[in-house]
């Protein structure tokens, strides 16, 4: 079987980002690799774009074209890449601080435009704003990310945790195959055994948070994103919330320009040659 036909996405032999002992980001590497393999797209066509922070290292451990960019800017970098070569399957895989805090505006517009990207947002509750309710010292309220993504126009919206790896792999596969902006939130708390992090985050010692997710979450496919806010006094709602159809940015662009220019319009298919 030729290398291209093999469905498995292997990890890089030359380099591996390391994670803390007991960090579940390690398992996300496998889930991501499995999700990509399930799409059956040629590995060459898949690209991962990330930013900064621990979640952004996950994609770098897989044997796939990988770009680590400035914090907050993975989505526009991915936009340029996808528009430049429409054949690529571009996955943005990074953390909540990157995507929703610093990069919030870009996520918003990618949703509005319905750019054909898959955005996987690892919410680890370490960065203050987006997931802060877990951190006792932080008073800032969190986002309801699925709600945000849905409001901005995402066509596929889901939430899983790092305790639901096979659901996550399937979701990634569905999201990558779906044209338009797909958004998956993955709750994956920082379970650092590093002392400095434990001091800041006393609830996150050991596997406590992961156990909490496993025991206190409920899967409700089709739930309205407006009702899936995270509040630790009630169960966390997981599932595939939204799957809908909207014209993608490129569909709309082609339709408009073809209408105006008729047969003078040349549709961009991507670069040729190497």
């Amino acid at each position, binding site marked *: 079987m030729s290398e*291209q036909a093999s469905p498995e996405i292997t990890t890089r032999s030359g380099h591996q980002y390391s994670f803390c002992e007991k960090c579940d980001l390690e398992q996300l590497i496998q889930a991501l690799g499995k999700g990509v393999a399930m799409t059956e797209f040629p590995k060459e066509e898949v690209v991962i774009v990330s930013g900064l922070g621990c979640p952004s290292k996950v994609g*770098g451990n897989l044997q796939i074209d990988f770009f680590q960019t400035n914090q907050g*800017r993975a989505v526009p970098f991915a936009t340029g890449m996808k528009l430049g070569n429409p*054949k690529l399957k571009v996955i943005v895989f990074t953390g909540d601080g990157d995507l929703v805090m610093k990069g919030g505006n870009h996520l918003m517009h990618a949703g509005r435009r319905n750019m054909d990207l898959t955005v996987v947002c690892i919410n680890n509750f370490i960065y203050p704003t987006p997931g802060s309710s877990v951190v006792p010292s932080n008073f800032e309220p969190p986002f309801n990310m699925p709600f945000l993504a849905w409001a901005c126009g995402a066509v596929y919206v889901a939430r899983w945790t790092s305790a639901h790896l096979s659901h996550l792999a399937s979701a990634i596969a569905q999201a990558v195959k779906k044209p338009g902006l797909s958004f998956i939130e993955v709750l994956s708390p920082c379970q650092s055994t590093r002392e400095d992090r434990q001091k800041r985050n006393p609830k996150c010692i050991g596997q406590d948070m992961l156990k909490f997710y496993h025991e206190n979450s409920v899967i409700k496919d089709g739930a309205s994103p407006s009702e899936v806010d995270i509040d630790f006094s009630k169960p966390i709602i997981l599932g595939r919330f939204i799957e809908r159809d909207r014209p993608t940015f490129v569909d709309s662009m082609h339709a408009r320009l073809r209408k105006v220019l008729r047969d003078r319009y040349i549709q961009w298919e991507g670069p040729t040659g190497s």
Partner: protein
Amino acid sequence: MLTADPQGTLTGTHKMDGNTACAEGALAAGCRFFAGYPMPPAQEIAERFAKRIPQLGGVYIQMEDEMSAMNAILGASWAGLKSFSATSGPGFSLMLENLGLGTMLETPTLIINVQRAGPALGIPDKPAQADVMQARWGSHGDYELIVLAPNSPQECFDLTVQAVNWSEKYRVPCIVLSDEAVGHQVGEVVIPPAEKIELQPRRYYTGPKGSYLPYKPDPDGVPPMTKAGDGHRFHVTGLTHDYKGYPVMKAECQQQLVPRLCRKILDNEETLSITDENGIEGADIVVVSYGSTSLKAKEAIFKARGDGLRVGHLRLVTIWPLAEKRLRAIAPQVKAFVVPELNYGQIVFEVERCAAGQAAVHAVPHGGGETHSVERIYQKIKEAAQ
């Protein structure tokens, strides 16, 4: 030899403004991706490209801000396209962090900055030349890039083609530093037949898959590139990295990477630092100018020569890398340099540094908002000659 695509090249003699000529230069040079954000006085560049590209095949997108525009052109470049953006001071300021990413990833791309009066919002449709230092030093860290300053619509075309070619050759973002006066000046632009416009092909890696090292330089200090989707499954990062493109958080790696990023440009000063010289031989005074100010300087020099003064003109066509060797060679042979700029003093300090006390250096600063004053430059030349 790679030459321009006749489809994208508007061969002929045209009357067009500098901004339009920049857009046509980008098209002739093979740019097929533009991402930008509206910003006077650069708007005509975006508008021209947006109008032309749907009939050539390519992408135009207005992004939500200049930060995303800069990232989009980097992403498109890594997808295999020649890409560019156009903006002015306020937008260029927003692009800086990600321009730095472009230098670190060694991504060919182009930014056209049509300078306007600042700081902050300033006057959107009036000229200045106050972003000169920013063009080189704006992003954090050590890096070098290439900055060209046209002074006519023809040069807007020619230097845009040159900038795209050099960005490919040296794998570095390049800047065309225009200004509102040049951008909106209407003049004759001769666009040659496509086969006469030589282009620099991207230096792609051609070796076996599995052996590709994204940042292993060729002897000239520039590593061969690849693009996403070619099957090399490479890894690039804005963190300090080794030949393989993996991050290495060690001083040794830093010592290896940063000098190479700088030297690949600085070592090529002779090729890259284009000057336009007139009457330097035997001159007592040399006026150093660039961009729209050079047209005023030329008039002032003509007037001064009419008075019998021996005045030369050194126009910086390339601003960065600076024509240091040239300036250092001229300094001991002249009495003084006169440096008129449409800013409160930027290149004049570089000239002073290069002169190293061997010639006096006279600034002719200007707050901007209109083109420079022939009279003030002329008076300064006379003062310098005494």
